[in-house]
């Protein structure tokens, strides 16, 4: 089974959380999982033909109750998530388009990492080095 894990984001500020997590997952894993980083969610569509399982990792606005939320698409929680995206084309719109065009793999999972008012969660800010380990453990447990 080909698993593709995609970090969505940019190098700027809190928006780098998806990329950071994917970079760290890539360092920890040694299987044939494909790790990718995209700046625009629409670019995920380029890789859908290559995978059986798609895992998206992105920052989510106002996800304050918990630093991380994991969902399996389709799920109302994902649709309600405040995901940003270029051209008004965010992760949700990308998944809806892929679904309409029957491009989605059998399994699509979403990891949302909470950010608040333009900054990553307070926990992340205080101690990214140790917090990232907890995030990685949770993310890996989600798709293991």
């Amino acid at each position, binding site marked *: 089974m080909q698993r593709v894990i995609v970090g969505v984001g940019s190098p700027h500020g809190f928006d780098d959380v998806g990329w950071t997590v994917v970079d760290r997952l890539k360092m920890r894993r040694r299987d044939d999982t494909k790790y990718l980083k995209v700046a625009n969610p629409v*670019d995920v569509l*380029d890789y859908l033909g290559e995978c059986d399982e798609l895992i998206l990792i992105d920052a989510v606005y106002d996800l304050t109750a918990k630093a991380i939320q994991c969902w399996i698409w389709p799920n109302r929680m994902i649709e309600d998530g405040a995901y940003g995206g270029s051209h008004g084309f965010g992760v949700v719109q990308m998944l809806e388009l892929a679904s309409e*065009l029957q491009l989605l793999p059998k399994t699509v999972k979403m990891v949302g990492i909470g950010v608040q008012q333009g900054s990553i969660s307070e926990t992340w800010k205080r101690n990214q080095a140790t917090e990232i380990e907890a995030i990685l453990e949770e993310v890996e447990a989600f798709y293991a």
Partner: protein
Amino acid sequence: MTDSASPNRKIHVPILTRVEGEGALNIVLGRESIERVELNIYEPPRFFEAFLQGRNHNEVADITARICGICPIAYQMTAIQAIESAWGICIPEPIYRLRRLMYFAEWIESHGLHIHLLHAPDFFGCASGLELAKKDPVSVQRGLKLKKIGNQVLELLGGRAIHPISLAVGGFFRLPRREELLQLVPHFEWGLQASIDMVRWIGGFEFPEFDSPTVYVALQNPKEYAIMNGAIASSDGATVDVGKYEQCFYEEHVEHSTALHAHRVGNPLPYQVGPMARVHLSYDQLSSTVRSLAEEIGWQLPSFNPYHSIIARGLELVQAFEEGLSILKSFDSKVEARVAYETAEASGCAATEAPRGLIYHRYDLDQSGHVCRAKIVPPTSQNQRQIERDLVQILPSMLAETDESIARRCETLIRNYDPCISCATHFLKVRRTKGVES
């Protein structure tokens, strides 16, 4: 929102959709007149020119690429060419051709996305690319496949599709192997035919009848369809060397926008950059395939209908695939990746054609090759005034419509320009205000 019966109206579109970045549109309508139209770019200024000060010249391409996730090559290439100009660096023809292929790849990715997912929905009465996919899934899938080819080239030539890392002052840090390039040939052969089919598809669209006379400004080069090299030409006959850009164009800050507005010195009227400008000013340099296709769909130049920009983008996609195919097949991999150079205290500038239009960079460099000053003028800041002028001209025909209808049609008009707000703030939400503000 109010309705058309209201005596005075303010229309506010707080977030423009299907554009890159964040902007709004504010419209104030009197009883029978247009009081104010403002394209309100509220993304914070990003201060890239200041970030560049003190940086080594080798960092400039990596930093400027971060200005935009859609058109990083335009920023990188313009920056590198400006530095090369400062130090008199001449690159070999094969390297120039490979850079041109890389630039075409960015056009393919950007134009492919804009045509199919952002702009075409307007011509089908669809609110989004998703709605268009329900009506015409085959066309949308074609667009996604075209866009993917652009990204494949960027990954090969640039090391990665996002913020590529291979462009260097003097050439490339790494050249692709010839066999790697040849693997892309079948994709470009498919892309060429698919883009021709796409132009025929676009030729069947029903275009709103609206002319907005403007002055087109773009690079012009008698030897090729100008992208990276040429003089700055305008449709009113003026042509200037890139080195005189700052004598002929200037930027000013306006209260309602965090992006600067560009002007031509001594000319109060706005001007327009982008695919429409390029096609008009360099039509003869388009391939015979492209010109025949324009004739086949009945597109007559000159055209001052901004809705025709989707045709211009389509034609440029065909040009990109056709010429890109030629470059792929003929690349001489025996060339050195980089030419040697020496740093010196000098200034240099360059202009290239980003997907959205002319982009200008200038760098003042010190003896050790560090940046003392930088100036960057992106396409969207040059098109903002023309967009506002288009809106002022089209709004009188909409006065009897509801606020919702006006907002929707104004957004459609703005999308003709494929504005990139993130670049411009280095752009839209519409606010229609009831009553003239005192």
